[in-house]
């Protein structure tokens, strides 16, 4: 079946929904999502969304936020985009408030703000209260508010449609082909503009805070039609994942005063970040924890650390961190009011993604040549406001804000863009993939391959990396990709066939995992979320550059030609310095 809409948005998380609200007011927009919109993973975000409102830290200014973001990114972030983001942050958040988003409040009734790792006043002098929050379900209320705005504006949702391929010809996006998850069958959507808001790729790792749906589909789709993906090796490991399940314990738990302790019961962060302690940026805390574990100071000699919030008292816990108390009880069987929570680093955020510029237009090469009619925002994009490492609460902001920018940009562009013609072979790639998976009888199981991929990525491409490990992992990924050709699924039906869809997602994971590993291998330095034990220093001469990875003839080709933008739009920019807290 063929559907025609002015604008096709893939993904109904904060990025996709925010764009849809903007566009829905003036043009015919279709939003495709493989889960019901309100179930997108944005809803899992707990801690907050950054904006220098100055409701509590009254001296807060966007320049401080910009500095923190640039420094947090380990100077790999593009400062023009960062400046736009931090400057527009307050109005973006206020706008959500006007749409009814419920935020926790200060006594005077303003939006409450809390501390979050890496956010400071006066360029690092003291911690800033910058994260606007709603108890500990900030992402949830933002997502629902946006979804409800979409309902108000009668946005066309195609829920439970999984996009399989992007139709793209001669630098121009035409549409996408999707699978109707409920009844089966291919549906083609085409329009003047196509936007990706498909979220992150944490599911490449075994221990992850990400949803099952976060399989980085957008990245695979884009790379399959010959476009590059950027900075894939930068994966943020969050220090506080629940032991074994990886489910996130919000950084708010540390923001509210939680302590990290090793097997000796000591707050070991004083050895790593004496001023900020537990509130140091995530990558540092995660590495500190991993090091404690590697050196045998994990709890019970296992790979876990204790997060202690019991001293905060029941009332504060119930008031500020109700969800955490529930999570710890449900998933770790501990009562955080009286005992410490066992945690371990968990793959949390994907800095890499589809390269796009500050107007969210997707770019196709190191010179930032724009594709026509193709946009990306949110976690799937790499506009590079996070560079090598994202600060907590900056990604909800990114998704909202660049979703908004995408919406405005598309509204501006859409009337200059003609409806494209569907090429005759528009469905072939998707149909081929479906048929291959359905008809193949090689005996390899999705669960097995995916398990092996996630295990090995965690061990050999995780918090710490070395050349040997990465080399090994490169071969592992190749081996798994090879075995994927013998994939066999059990379910051959049309109706709600998640077996088929999981196989397709596995194909995506295998695809871009290659780019992660290869980027990590070639980037012989340590920066932000990427840490090479054999190259523990940052190397600005060689690597103050974005990684671009192209999939060509089944292999990944990487370059480090894309320059980092070191100047803001109006701000002179911050010179790279050593990142210390």
């Amino acid at each position, binding site marked *: 079946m063929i559907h025609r809409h002015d604008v096709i948005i893939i993904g109904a998380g904060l990025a996709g929904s925010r764009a849809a609200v903007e566009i829905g007011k003036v043009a015919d927009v279709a939003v495709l999502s493989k889960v019901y919109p309100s179930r997108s993973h944005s809803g899992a975000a707990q801690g907050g969304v950054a904006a220098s409102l100055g409701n509590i830290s009254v001296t807060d200014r966007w320049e401080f936020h910009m500095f923190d973001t640039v420094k947090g990114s380990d100077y790999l972030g593009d400062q023009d985009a960062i400046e736009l983001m931090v400057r527009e942050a307050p109005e973006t958040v206020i706008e959500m408030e006007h749409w009814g988003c*419920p935020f926790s409040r200060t006594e005077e009734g303003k939006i409450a703000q809390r501390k979050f790792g890496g956010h400071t006043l006066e360029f690092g002098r003291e911690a800033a209260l910058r994260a606007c929050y709603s108890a500990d379900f900030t992402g949830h209320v933002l997502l629902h508010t946006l979804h409800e705005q979409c309902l108000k504006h009668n946005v066309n949702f195609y829920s439970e449609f999984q996009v399989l391929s992007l139709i793209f010809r001669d630098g121009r996006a035409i549409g996408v082909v999707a699978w109707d998850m409920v009844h089966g069958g291919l549906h083609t959507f085409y329009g003047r503009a196509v936007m990706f808001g498909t979220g992150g790729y944490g599911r490449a790792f075994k221990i992850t805070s990400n949803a099952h749906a976060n399989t980085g589909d957008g990245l695979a789709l884009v790379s399959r039609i010959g476009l590059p993906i950027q900075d894939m090796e930068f994966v943020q490991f969050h220090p506080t994942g629940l032991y074994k399940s990886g489910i996130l314990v919000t950084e708010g738990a540390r923001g509210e005063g939680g302590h990290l302790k090793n097997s000796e019961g000591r707050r070991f962060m004083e050895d790593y970040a004496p001023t900020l302690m537990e509130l140091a940026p995530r990558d540092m805390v995660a590495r500190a924890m991993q090091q404690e574990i590697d050196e045998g100071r994990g709890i019970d000699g296992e790979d876990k650390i204790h997060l202690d919030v019991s001293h905060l008292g029941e009332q504060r816990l119930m008031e500020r961190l109700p969800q955490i108390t529930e*999570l710890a009880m449900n998933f770790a069987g501990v009562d955080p009011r009286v005992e410490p929570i066992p945690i371990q680093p968990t793959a949390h955020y994907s800095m890499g993604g589809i390269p796009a510029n500050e107007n969210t237009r997707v770019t196709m090469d190191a010179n930032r040549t724009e594709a026509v009619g193709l946009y990306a925002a949110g976690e799937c994009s790499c506009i590079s406001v996070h560079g090598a490492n994202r600060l907590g609460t900056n990604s909800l902001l990114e998704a909202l804000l660049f979703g908004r920018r995408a919406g405005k940009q598309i509204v501006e562009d859409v009337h200059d863009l003609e409806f494209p013609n569907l090429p005759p072979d528009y469905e072939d790639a998707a149909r081929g993939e479906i048929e291959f998976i359905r008809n193949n009888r090689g005996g390899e*199981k999705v669960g097995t391959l995916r398990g092996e991929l996630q295990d090995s990525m965690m061990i050999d491409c995780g918090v710490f990396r070395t050349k040997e490990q990465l080399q090994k992992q490169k071969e592992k990924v190749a081996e798994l990709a090879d075995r994927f050709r013998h994939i066999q699924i059990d379910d051959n*039906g049309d109706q709600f066939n998640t077996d088929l869809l999981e196989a397709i997602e596995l194909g995506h994971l295998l695809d871009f995992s290659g780019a992660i590993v290869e980027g990590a291998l070639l980037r012989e330095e340590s920066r932000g979320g990427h840490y090479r034990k054999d190259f523990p220093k940052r190397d600005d001469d060689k690597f103050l550059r974005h990684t671009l990875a192209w999939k060509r003839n089944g292999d990944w080709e990487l370059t480090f030609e894309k320059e980092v933008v070191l100047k803001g739009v109006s701000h002179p920019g911050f010179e790279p310095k050593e990142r210390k807290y």
Partner: protein
Amino acid sequence: MADTSQRSFRIFRFNPETDDKPYYQTYEIEVESWWTVLDALNEIKWFVDGTLSYRRSCRHGICGSCAMMINGLNDLACEKQIKLIRRNPITIDPLPGFEIHKDLAVDMDPFYKALKRVKPWLINNDPPPSRERIQSPEQFHLIGDGIACILCAACTSSCPSYWSDEEYLGPAALLKAYRYSFDSRDQGLGDRIDALDNRHGLWRCHKITNCFHACPKNLNPTEAISRLQRRVIEEKT
């Protein structure tokens, strides 16, 4: 430290493409001590029988995908610790009251349509101030249950009134109506009243409280409905 045990799962199966009638299929698997029901379903799907269909995404109780009936009561599979369930086998059914797509996946469209009927968005025709609208912490807490709802449908699907009247808005949509109508920034009760004060609206609630017990987020839709009922009565007199 593989702390495992053997459990059976008796799972409702139905594929409208091929089956005339639904049936139960029992799977025996090893479960680890920290697993939830969703982990067990995943184990079955990934390593035993790929044809089993169900919904899941976040796997930590926030997206609302995995609501289903576990031993006769609606719950979130991803939040239900297996070791806390004494019955064996553990019986799993789809959410009652909805049409079945396949196995444990049901058609949620009616649920979302009901939601839309209560106009779930802030209605306020005054021009917004340049900064945020002021709202006190108490006013924020008043709508706390409403904003915490994850739209999992466990409540609506457990409600006998919904079983007898598919067009009944149901507790989830009513909780949403409460969340907006009791928001200090909202002026929209008048716009919602037609949907609420209706044969399929507020008055179909007989305070059966299945919804209250089913809600995996420990929310209280019953109380929200009561408050809305009172508010609508006030509005009408």
